[in-house]
């Protein structure tokens, strides 16, 4: 049996986690033109909360929802209480969210400890599926891939086809002019910020189901999400999907071919995209 299809599928399922994490960041980044450095914090916070709830209730779905809602509330708090007044000041927003990230890292270390935890999921999902070409493959990874695809399509539909989506896109294009048509762009910003953070939290639970949750993942997932957004093009959901798949696949193949350079190769991908297409694969020139 050839291992390459297996590695490809592993890359895609890892990409699914990256996509859920980075779809929120690309919306925040694209719409508000601010970098939130607390995105990884939402990810890990959501993951831990999902773990606590899933372990306590023995219900994985409740865990997913808990991570989503908890991170969404964290995002809403961060936006409304901490950064709303400084929204036009990129540097302050970056520094404030960096502060949230640093405090969050230590608080989570204090509360959840330094050891690895994994989100429990139902016994009947802990089976392998016999796929053609690839052979046995864990069902849970396919479920997570499916969740990411459905979520991606749903976000795409909302952004592309609804009135709220039109307003969001108009805000990305020209926020002052959008405001002049009677739209309170700041409310739209708040919603997007909360939704983006909630998606990161959901990604945390999903990731915690496939892999252990560890201190430090807040930083690494912030980094991966930024790479995905830069590769895919900021503000673009299809771009985030393509970027996530690429980053996931490249890192999985790199692990097999040249494990020492796996991390470097992921960034090499970013460097190449930046050199050839600075606005990202699906991005538009500023």
């Amino acid at each position: 049996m050839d291992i390459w299809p297996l590695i490809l599928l592993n890359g895609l399922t890892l990409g699914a986690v990256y996509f859920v994490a980075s779809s929120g960041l690309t919306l925040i980044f694209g719409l508000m033109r601010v970098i939130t450095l607390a995105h990884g914090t939402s990810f890990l916070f959501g993951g831990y909360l999902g773990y606590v709830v899933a372990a306590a209730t023995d219900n994985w779905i409740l865990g997913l929802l808990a991570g989503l809602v908890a991170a969404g509330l964290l995002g809403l708090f961060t936006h409304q209480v901490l950064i709303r007044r400084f929204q036009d000041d990129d540097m302050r927003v970056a520094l404030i969210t960096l502060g949230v990230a640093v405090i969050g890292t230590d608080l989570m270390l204090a509360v959840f400890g330094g050891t690895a935890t994994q989100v429990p999921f139902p016994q009947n999902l802990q089976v392998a599926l016999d796929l053609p070409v690839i052979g046995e493959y864990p069902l849970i990874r396919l479920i997570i891939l499916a969740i990411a695809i459905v979520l991606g399509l749903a976000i795409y539909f909302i952004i592309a086809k609804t009135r709220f989506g039109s307003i969001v896109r108009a805000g990305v294009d020209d926020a002052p002019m959008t405001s002049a048509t009677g739209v309170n762009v700041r409310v739209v910003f708040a919603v997007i910020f909360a939704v983006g953070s909630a998606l990161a939290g959901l990604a945390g639970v999903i990731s915690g189901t496939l892999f252990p949750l560890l201190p430090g993942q807040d930083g690494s997932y912030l980094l991966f999400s930024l790479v995905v957004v830069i590769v895919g093009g900021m503000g673009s959901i299809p771009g985030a999907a393509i970027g996530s798949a690429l980053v996931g696949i490249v890192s999985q193949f790199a692990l097999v071919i040249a494990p020492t350079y796996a991390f470097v190769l992921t960034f090499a991908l970013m460097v190449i995209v930046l050199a050839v297409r600075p606005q990202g694969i699906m991005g538009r020139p500023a």
Partner: protein
Amino acid sequence: MPETVKPGGAILDVQDLNVYYGRVHVLQDVSFSMGAEPLGVLGRNGMGKSTLVKALMGFIPTESGTAAFEGQNIIGLPSYKINRRGIAYVPQGRRIFRSLTVHEHLTMVGAPKNARWNIEAIYETFPRLAERKKNGGADLSGGEQQMLAIARALLSNPRLLIMDEPSEGLAPTIVDHIAEVFRSLVSAGQAVLLIEQNLRFATELCDRILFMVNGQIAADLPATQVARDSAVQEKFLGVV
């Protein structure tokens, strides 16, 4: 001080508006008042015309002064509140949203179905937009973009429409079409504040003309006088 119409039937009453860009005093004690009659603001590039409307729309901060719209000050309000009070804006350069289709530009404004301007009324008035409703904003010609910018503003059903250089960069036939739209709006009672560099366009469409020179209102004259008095044109615009 330039002579201004005394407030009374005034829709917009601007008093001593001052705007700075850094240390540059761009608008200097600008005062004027307008009723329902179309008012034109003429001036060469860089004289502060666009700054004036950006200040009125809440795009840029002001140093001092007030602008009473229907008796209530709008200076300091965010743009969306100014729009909801009843002022809509057709910006210079049109500022069409490039990732929205024509139809999405119209639906995002959310005009009430029974209002004077709803989406059906817009498509009736601008059949060209109906033909291109699925096209992206960036794919339109300059004239179509101008139509769309006007349509987008009208859907707010404003009591005051502010247009910043709607004739800029358009072919003469398109300019004539915009003028036609403008006249029908005015005859339907729409109050319009028109910012222009195009002397003929402004004097044909407006009753009164304000001249802006170096951030100040230098003159307030009837449009008919401006149209025939080349000395006035020479003095304030440098054209013969």
